[in-house]
């Protein structure tokens, strides 16, 4: 018990320690959490009328961001898998950081869903036993299950590894019997959360743009691009600012994954657009709307071409060895662009335009409100602050700066 307590204490105190830049980053996030608490309170008391959603476009920014968090969370296994499947020594040490990313992003996604709900007070209706989950019909039920299980698996993995390393008992050869299955399960579970999230969308026959079989594949490819982008950024930062060793080979592996994923995204887009546009039936209506606008409504057009353009450019860029190897400048730039492009792709290409035309032929544009915007920032700020603190603490343990001292630390 004393050990666990000192683990928590040491972990926490190391996590908040840092230079002025680190403190500034935390304060920056804290600012959005403060402002966001107010806007979140407003939304909780007055309802979703404060956000931009209407009966024509019932899904808001929260929903779009939720899908994105699922991308990154699912992709975090790409850091875990090489170490455990291919026994790559250079990355096995870092697996725990992948799991931290997965954990934080699933939690962020769940927070987005709380904002999306009309009656968050009634969420218990989905619990088996006391509630009435619509199993096995409703895709949302599956999604809730897989997300929560994924959260739990990663939480278990992270706490186990960190704690064992902290007390100095972590030995890759003598892992606890239950632990290896948990890690392997988490690895296969990653794609699963993604496929389920894609099915929540594609199961709606009336949403012409979503009801396509390539949706899960597109999602997985986007996960493969956005997740490793974040991982590279994070690893470069860690490498620069801490004593933790991260080999170039790890960064290169991630860059390769991004390249392949961007290629697959392009293929998926091309397949989808070809199929829709060649015959150009009503199924292509939303796509036409995104690409060219409709009767002068063309808010989504620049987002569409901008996103597609950045994906193509990043693909080309990351194929060039010079850029891929430019760890201080170009690689991070490409990673930021990929991350942001896929982030805005969600609301502006995938979600909002898909609702036009509506079942009655209406074309609408979505205008997020300020409150909605701040609630989104609020959720992201919480997500990133957790991520920062967790990673900081974990790095401390991995480098051995934080470890258990028998008599001195607790008594």
């Amino acid at each position: 018990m004393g050990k666990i307590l000192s683990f928590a204490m040491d972990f926490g105190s190391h996590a908040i320690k840092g230079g002025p830049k680190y403190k500034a980053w935390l304060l920056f996030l804290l600012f959005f959490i403060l402002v966001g608490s107010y806007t979140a309170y407003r939304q909780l008391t007055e309802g979703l009328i404060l956000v931009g959603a209407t009966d024509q476009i019932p899904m808001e920014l929260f929903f779009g961001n939720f899908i994105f968090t699922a991308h990154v969370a699912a992709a975090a296994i790409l850091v875990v898998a090489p170490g455990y499947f291919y026994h790559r020594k250079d990355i096995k040490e870092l697996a725990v950081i992948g799991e931290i990313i997965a954990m934080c992003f699933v939690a962020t996604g769940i927070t987005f869903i709380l904002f999306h709900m009309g009656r968050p007070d009634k969420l218990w209706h989905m619990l088996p036993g006391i509630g009435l989950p619509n199993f096995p019909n409703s895709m949302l039920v599956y999604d809730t299950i897989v997300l929560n299980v994924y959260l739990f698996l990663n939480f278990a993995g992270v706490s186990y590894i960190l704690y064992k390393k902290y007390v100095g008992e972590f030995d890759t050869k003598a892992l606890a019997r239950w632990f290896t299955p948990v890690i392997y399960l988490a690895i296969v579970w990653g794609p699963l959360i993604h496929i389920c999230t894609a099915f929540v969308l594609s199961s709606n026959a009336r949403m012409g743009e979503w009801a396509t079989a390539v949706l899960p594949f597109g999602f997985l490819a986007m996960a493969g691009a956005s997740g490793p982008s974040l991982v590279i950024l994070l690893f470069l930062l860690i490498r620069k600012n801490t004593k933790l060793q991260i080999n170039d080979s790890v960064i290169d592996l991630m860059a390769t994954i991004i390249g392949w994923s961007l290629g697959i995204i392009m293929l998926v887009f091309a397949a989808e657009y070809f199929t829709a546009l060649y015959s150009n039936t009503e199924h292509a209506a939303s796509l036409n709307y995104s690409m060219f606008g409709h009767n002068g409504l063309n808010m989504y057009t620049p987002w569409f071409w901008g996103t597609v353009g950045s994906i193509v450019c990043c693909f080309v860029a990351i194929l060039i060895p010079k850029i891929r190897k430019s760890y201080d400048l170009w690689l991070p730039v490409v990673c930021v662009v990929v991350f942001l492009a896929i982030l805005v792709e969600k609301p502006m290409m995938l979600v909002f335009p898909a609702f036009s035309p509506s079942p009655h032929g209406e074309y609408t544009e979505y205008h997020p409100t300020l409150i909605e915007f701040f609630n989104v920032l609020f959720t992201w700020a919480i997500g990133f602050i957790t991520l920062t603190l967790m990673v900081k603490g974990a790095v401390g343990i991995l480098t051995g700066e934080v470890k258990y001292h028998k008599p001195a630390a607790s008594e």
Partner: protein
Amino acid sequence: MSEKIIEIHIETDDVNESRRDFLKNVGIAGAATLVASPVSVEASADSANPDAETTVAELYQGHFVLMSDKDKKKAIERLEKRYTAKYGKNTTVSDAPPLEGVLFGYALDISKCIGCRRCVHACVQENNQSRDNPVIQWIQVMKIPKGNFSFSADKLNKGYPESSKVGDYGIQVGGNAYTPVGGLSTEEAQSYYSQDEMVPDKNYFYVPVQCQQCEKPPCVKACPVRATFRDPNGVVVIDYNWCIGCRMCQLACPYGARRFNWGEPNLPPEEMNPKTHYFGNRPRMRGVMEKCTFCVQRTREGRNPACLEACPVGARKFGNLLDPESDVRKILAAKKVFRFKEEMSTYPKFFYYIG
């Protein structure tokens, strides 16, 4: 946004547009308060609720269908007390059971409908929808061009690709293609024509759309908590107290029939209809879904839905699909009948016909 579009939106009684504008204002107002006085906004909707006890009891109320008779009675009493206090009218909440051996069906004659939208307003009156912020109407009347008035001889050989020696490819873009031809295509449909427009316009026909009471309802399949379900009379209803407001059903519905209470509904007490049903027209709360129920509060007592009674031209017919003598059955047997968006395979029990 082109000027043409803006003009249309301003001229018509565009429910959703105005709501959106309102929202923008809220957003801006919200930002203003945010800067000016972060504590001043206390006027939350909850203070309008006179009966905190009910709210607490409802927090852990189960699914109505699964409740014991005793609990049902208690829940109903709670609601009656609350509504009576809130609206100053003696309100009854019925939980009349479904009828035996009945499958409800509706038929609408699109050749008769004149687009006056009296059904829309009768429905709002009867079913206690929110009048303002959000505006909720369960029936939406589409105005669809009869078609063919943009084919022209000038465009005969226009369009891309141009014809070549080998002959024509047929037009892919431009020319006389893309011309509306009416039918039940929503392509050129407008739902927001002006309130004081003279109807019927001879160039258009009108198609009212409301919940089609699908036999194979995708909304029911999508609901994660079974708050919405098909009752034994074939009507899809919602337990408003059980709904978690996830809007999966709204995503699934191919007819745009579902309406969400984005904010606390605004129902002026003087306009409130005090004769209600638990699954029907009892006042709703913020954050739950609602939609047409074929007026369960009426039909379970053998009366006709309010929209039918309001229709001045008798375009609407309602009845028991299992009874060969009912109006709907006779129409199904004798008229040219079709379903809206048949390709969705939802098998609606709402039929359109040409009389």
